[in-house]
């Protein structure tokens, strides 16, 4: 991994509002946090105040879901300005988002939609990554999304797309090994071959998460523990990236902070570290209504902070 792109932060956890109080009461036994940019960039309330406080005590990175780097719409410069202002405030180790598009014609699906992997798409994304990097004054880190479709017009595989993108722009990469598994399973391709072809030397960060295996296909639900087949991919990816910063995402049916940390620590046994046996998971697993790219974590429980005064 290029030392210019970002430091090795160790084991981190996605920052979720359900855990705010416990983290602030700290110290939390976690190396760093990843904050969802959109949860904080427009905030004038408690979320931003909490993030400022956490950023004073732990390394943080900003992870976006709405940059829409692949959209044919013009880049949203107001969004970028807000992101830059937030970055100025909390000094993230890096800023990441996804290789995807979220909307077009001024509309937003609030999903991470896949791109056709073509020369046209590559040229389009290269130009926009350069524009974003110029605006932010730092390399952008881009993540491989989970996908349920493949475009007939695609002319290259995703690892090649990322390799050429990073060569052309100098951007860094966030390798989500759960997404690799989900996308490859749904496409009927080999996730190990994906990792072998991926430009791991440009990887700054690894993502771990749980998915739902429905037999015929997998859904990227982020609502349960990491599955054994993903841990195996993580073991390979961690070695190939030279021990990139690793983060657990949990975005739906979010368990206690302690349960999240217990799941995160399982990573150590796949990093060649001697660790105590992991306790049996106490986390409830969701049913058939699980959602791809869940967004519950994007909406804080605002209504929990409302009280009634008497007349």
């Amino acid at each position, binding site marked *: 991994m290029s030392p210019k792109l970002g430091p090795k932060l160790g084991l981190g956890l996605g920052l979720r509002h359900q855990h705010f109080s416990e983290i602030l009461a700290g110290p939390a036994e976690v190396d760093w946090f990843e904050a969802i940019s*959109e949860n904080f960039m*427009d*905030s*004038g*309330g*408690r*979320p931003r*105040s909490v993030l400022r406080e956490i950023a004073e005590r732990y390394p943080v990175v900003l992870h976006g879901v*709405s940059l829409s780097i692949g959209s*044919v719409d013009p880049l949203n410069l107001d*969004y970028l300005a807000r992101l830059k202002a937030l970055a100025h405030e909390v000094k993230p180790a890096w800023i990441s988002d996804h290789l995807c598009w*979220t*909307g*077009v*014609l*001024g*509309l*937003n*699906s*609030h*999903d991470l*939609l896949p791109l*056709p992997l*073509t020369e*046209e*798409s590559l040229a*389009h994304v290269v130009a926009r990554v350069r524009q974003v990097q110029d605006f932010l004054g730092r390399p952008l880190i881009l993540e491989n999304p989970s*996908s*349920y*479709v*493949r*475009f*007939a017009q*695609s002319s290259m595989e995703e690892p090649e797309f990322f390799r050429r993108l990073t060569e052309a722009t100098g951007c860094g990469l966030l390798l989500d090994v759960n997404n690799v598994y989900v996308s490859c*399973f*749904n*496409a*009927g*391709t080999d996730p190990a071959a994906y990792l072998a072809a991926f430009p791991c030397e440009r990887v700054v960060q690894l993502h771990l998460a749980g998915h739902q295996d429905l037999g*015929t*296909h997998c*859904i990227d639900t982020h609502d349960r523990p990491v599955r054994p087949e993903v841990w195996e991919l993580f073991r390979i990816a961690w070695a190939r990236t030279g021990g990139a910063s690793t983060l657990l995402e949990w975005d739906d049916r979010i368990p206690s902070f302690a349960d999240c940390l217990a799941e995160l620590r399982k990573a150590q046994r796949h990093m060649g570290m001697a660790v105590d046996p992991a306790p049996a998971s106490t986390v409830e697993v969701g049913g058939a*209504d699980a*959602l*791809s*790219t869940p*967004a*519950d974590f*994007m*909406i*804080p*429980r*605002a*209504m929990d*902070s*409302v*009280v*009634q*005064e008497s*007349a």
Partner: protein
Amino acid sequence: MSDPLEATQRWMHQALVFPQRADSGAIAGTFASGRLSGRDGLAIYQRSYVQRITRCMREQFPALCHALGEELFDDFVADYVRDKPPESHTLYDLGRRFPGFLEDSRPDRDAPLEARERWIDFMVDLARFERLVFTMFDAPGNEGRPFAVSATPDDLLRLQPCFAVARYRFDVAGYYHAVRQKQPAALPPAHLSFVALVRTDYLTRTVPLGEAHYLFLDAMAGGMGVADALEAVARQMSIEVEEVRRAWSTAADSPRALWLRMGFFVTPPPSTAHLA
């Protein structure tokens, strides 16, 4: 003619918003099959689009969802996102146009006011109230800064930034809190209801108001100082202004004292205080 990438994105986004319009020939031509067929893969995105928005809307309008029942609420949301697909990068914006959509799509919208369905009026007002409550959560506030105190002169009092007043045709605040506290909540009778919302220490309080208090605070929210707002109340309520001034501040439990304790008021920053 648009570029292939642009055409693909326009088509796929339309397929999410209007799944029934995505014909099978176009789906087969757009996607290659893997373990999942193109149609089945697209269906995951289509389902998730609606479910994600519906779940967020339930979170933002819990009392309205209770009042309508989940099934009917979800139907309204589905119509809403087809009519007004999300535009913003933030899900916080999702419900911004929902009260207006409910008002515009009511079946009796062309009827005279007195002939309209009261329960629809209630749903619209409840949606307006819940939207206002939700926006208070993350609006810029006065946390970490000083508030006005009892010794602050009237001519320096300003409403704090995270403050709102509103008027409704029903006691929507009472209904909202009953639902949130899991108490029995019936559709309230129609009567004008006034409420202030104020956030301190990241906690939003809803404060029921009388009409005169509402008029006063609404005038201040519109930019008036205390003296002008008191005169405006006297005019609108046909009360002697001296009586209004006495009511404002003389007693220990006067609105002035109560609202100062609740954090309604701040003073202008020192650099602009001399302009007050």
